């Protein structure tokens, strides 16, 4: 008796919470809300850092919280709390109602109770016991950092691992009632090389979702060789001369440019703000006809994949651009409400303390028919961007990206390595200049920070050629 009373008065992970969730939703609708959404999470994370030949940090963390979102007309109020008791959740609903200044509670939205529970977590409950132990992780990271020590020019070696396990319950007044478990693991290697006044760095990061054994399969030797080679190639590189020139962007993380410069402008949050130049361009040509771009959340194991989004919708494969024509925007619940673009299963958030927003998942330019060599051979004087660093997009769509590892192209051949290059441009001007796409599409994991926090994503593309872009340098 006592046990059931306790269960009915607070959210218990792994139990049926339907009655309590329905009660909270009824309460919100009764106070005049048009729509009530409850997102509850329980996290169990850990991270490990190896520096040189020592483990210097092991950081476990755990916690839980709830985010309650209330819609009234096109406005929404969002309250987050660590209090998962019935009283705590009711208080959050009241606070959201009060924030929205809802005083007319006569018109009641119909709520027929929650639908049948869609439990995506059933096959995933064992993951926590299948992920590598701290012992396994520390041993492999130490072997990895040791294998970075290939000569005395390497002055700093780091290996890092992080594992995020997130259990979620999502319920809303349209009947949605979903549970899921998400697992994300990343591992990265970094070096700094130095010789007299010369310095360079190299880094690579790998990541997966929903694959508890992936870290065990990670080829650390290959990764270490790659990072070492990159840092050595760049150690004595000259600064690039600035100017306008054709560039070839490598596959995998080269896709970060499309993600940042164009992908964000195809999120409905940008339409809501009036900050995308593509708002009224649906079914119009916005890119070169060689460009087809996709955003999806379904590739097995990819870092941006998910069984269900943070609003309880299964992700779809969205063809954003088809042969240069804009076909679709990335939309969430608020985006659909405010812009009319149908939801795409892209409502995402970092954790319970953020309201979901339209966010990218696995976003990439589709493969073309050319080889990498075709692209390079077509340029007499330009830049090959083998590895990209981070970048940003301004409020008016201008972007800039650091090139971590670059090489000059002379007469169709790769020549000297160059450093200090930055690619600068605007999506609507650059997209029509992507004239060739390679046949070697590959994806790479990353983290994307935006309105609803930092979320796991995949970026990707084959090798692509941009006919002309501004390269910043010295």
């Amino acid at each position, binding site marked *: 008796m006592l046990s059931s009373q306790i269960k009915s008065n607070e959210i218990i992970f792994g139990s049926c919470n339907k009655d309590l969730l329905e009660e909270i939703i009824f309460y919100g609708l009764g106070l005049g809300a048009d729509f009530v959404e409850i997102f509850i999470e329980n996290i169990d994370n850990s991270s*490990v*850092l190896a*520096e040189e030949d*020592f*483990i*210097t*940090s*092991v*950081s*476990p*963390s*755990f*916690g839980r919280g709830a985010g309650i979102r209330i819609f009234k007309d096109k*406005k*929404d*109020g*969002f*309250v*987050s709390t*660590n209090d998962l008791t019935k009283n705590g959740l009711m208080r959050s609903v009241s*606070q959201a109602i*009060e*924030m*929205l*200044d809802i005083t007319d509670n006569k018109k009641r939205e119909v709520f027929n109770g929650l639908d049948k529970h869609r439990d995506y977590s059933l096959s995933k409950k064992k993951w926590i016991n299948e992920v590598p132990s*701290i012992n396994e992780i*520390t041993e492999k990271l130490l072997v990895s950092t040791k294998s970075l020590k290939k000569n005395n020019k390497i*002055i*700093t070696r780091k290996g890092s691992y992080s594992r995020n396990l997130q259990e979620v319950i999502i319920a809303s007044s349209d009947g949605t009632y979903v549970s899921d478990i998400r697992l994300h693991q990343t591992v990265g290697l970094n070096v*700094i090389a130095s010789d007299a006044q010369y*310095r*360079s*760095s190299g880094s690579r990061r790998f990541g997966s979702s929903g694959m508890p054994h992936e870290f065990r399969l990670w080829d650390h030797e290959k990764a270490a060789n790659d990072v070492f080679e990159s840092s050595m190639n760049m150690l004595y590189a000259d600064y690039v001369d*600035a*100017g*306008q020139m054709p560039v070839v962007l490598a596959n995998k993380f080269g896709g970060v440019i499309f993600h940042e410069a164009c992908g964000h402008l195809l999120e409905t949050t940008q339409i*809501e*703000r*009036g*900050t995308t130049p593509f708002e009224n361009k649906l079914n119009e040509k916005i890119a070169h006809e060689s460009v087809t771009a996709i955003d999806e959340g379904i590739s097995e194991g990819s870092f941006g994949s998910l069984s269900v989004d943070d609003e309880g919708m299964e992700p779809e494969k969205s063809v954003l651009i088809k042969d240069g024509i804009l076909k679709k925007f990335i939309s969430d619940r608020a985006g659909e409400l405010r812009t009319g673009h149908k939801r795409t299963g892209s409502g995402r958030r970092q954790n319970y*303390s953020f*309201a979901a927003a339209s966010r990218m998942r696995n976003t990439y330019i589709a493969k073309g028919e050319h080889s990498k060599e075709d692209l390079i051979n077509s340029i007499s004087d330009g830049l090959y961007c083998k590895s990209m660093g*981070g970048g*940003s997009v*301004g*409020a*008016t769509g*201008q972007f*800039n*990206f*650091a090139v971590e590892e670059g090489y000059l192209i002379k007469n169709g051949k790769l020549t000297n390595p160059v450093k*200090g290059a*930055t690619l*600068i441009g*605007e999506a609507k001007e650059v997209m029509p200049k992507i004239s060739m796409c390679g046949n070697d599409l590959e994806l790479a994991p990353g983290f994307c920070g935006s309105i609803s926090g930092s979320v796991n994503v995949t970026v990707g593309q084959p090798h692509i050629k941009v006919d002309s872009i*501004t*390269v*910043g*340098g*010295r």
Partner: protein
Amino acid sequence: MNSKEITTQISEAADSLNLKKWDYGASFSNDCSVQVDKGEAKQLKASQKQILTIRVWNESNLVGITTTSDLSESGIKKALNQANIASDFGNKNERTEFSPLAKDPIEVKDSKKRNPVGIKKLLDLLREAEVKLLESHESIKSVPYNGLSESFYERVYANSDGAFRSYKKSQAALYLYARAEEKNKKPRSSGSVKLGYGVEDIDIESCIKDASNKTISHLNYSPIKTHKYLICFSPESFLTIINAFSSMFNARSILDGVSLSNKNSIGEKLSTQALNIYDDGLHEKNISSSPFDGEGTPTKRLCLINKGRLENFIHSESTARIFKTMPTGHAGLGSKVSVSPDWIVVEKSEENSALKTSLDHSTYEGEFVYIEELNAIHAGVRASQGSFSLPFDGWLYKNGKKISIESATVAGDIKYLLKNIVNIESNQEVTTSGISPHIWVDELSITGDA
């Protein structure tokens, strides 16, 4: 549960687990914020958050840590247990102890804690600000990024040696980013941020005026030729660059091999002798000041560059012990304790006779580039290598006229930049990240589209 009760609960739970040595840092906050869109409330947010970070020392004096938002009795016990397990993997190469200053008196100032005004008041104020900004110029068509928030928080540090300190504060923030559009021109955007202890302390009119003036001043723009230019950094942009390369002053970064400095760099000439730089977390203009750091060490003013020479590094407990000095109040609690500056203050030293004082951004009539704001710091700074290549908002001053620069980056090397400072103006300006005058640097590369 208040902070004293949490300390008691941790102490009792640690006793029951036979953990003799522990410390913790905790944060409790209540925040609310509003955003508007053309007079309508867009999103209203509120949150109650609690975060607890516990460290324990095992019998081999190795440290383990856990962070949690679960402050229930069972949550605290679980956190201690997890930290104890993590301590088996504690860093054997670098010992961590309590700060020797964790029980020293802290400078108690008026915290200026304000009372909440509530979400309705926030909404009314922001709606009014948005309307005024839209009406300030016909070309301003929207304010796509805006927000007004207030936050109330308590921070706590305590350890098993009897140290206990806490403080409560409030903070409010307003940001307004306007977007201007004119026919046959690209949209232009700029904005302003203001902080205060409470909403009543924020100069809303000045935020509207700054956002409007900045946005409008970029309406007439032109590309710039790629070239080397005489540069005037605004106080905000100079502080951005100093903060981006603060690993030069950071003992943790030195030990990690990611700093341009080394253990023996104290006394090294970094810049013109006219330059002084301090870190002054307790400065009266620092709204976010904290009287102690993550290890409980009192915050204090510290000279980083004195007359152009490196004077001090910033430290945590462990880096200070390795460098045979005392912690400076710059630690962040973590499995690996981080070190970071609080509030940078840049000023002209007494040794300033070599400066070209005719270079004044408000009167100088020669050609120069004024950098108002640097962007994409995370992408364009290689702190371990000393290089940067950053997009910026700014103007080209030429023949007595100023024109906004359409799209450009400034690139260089931090050591070159510091050594090529040719003037430090007299008037310091307060920004959200510190205080600095305008700084002039000769011959930096600008890449433009012209």
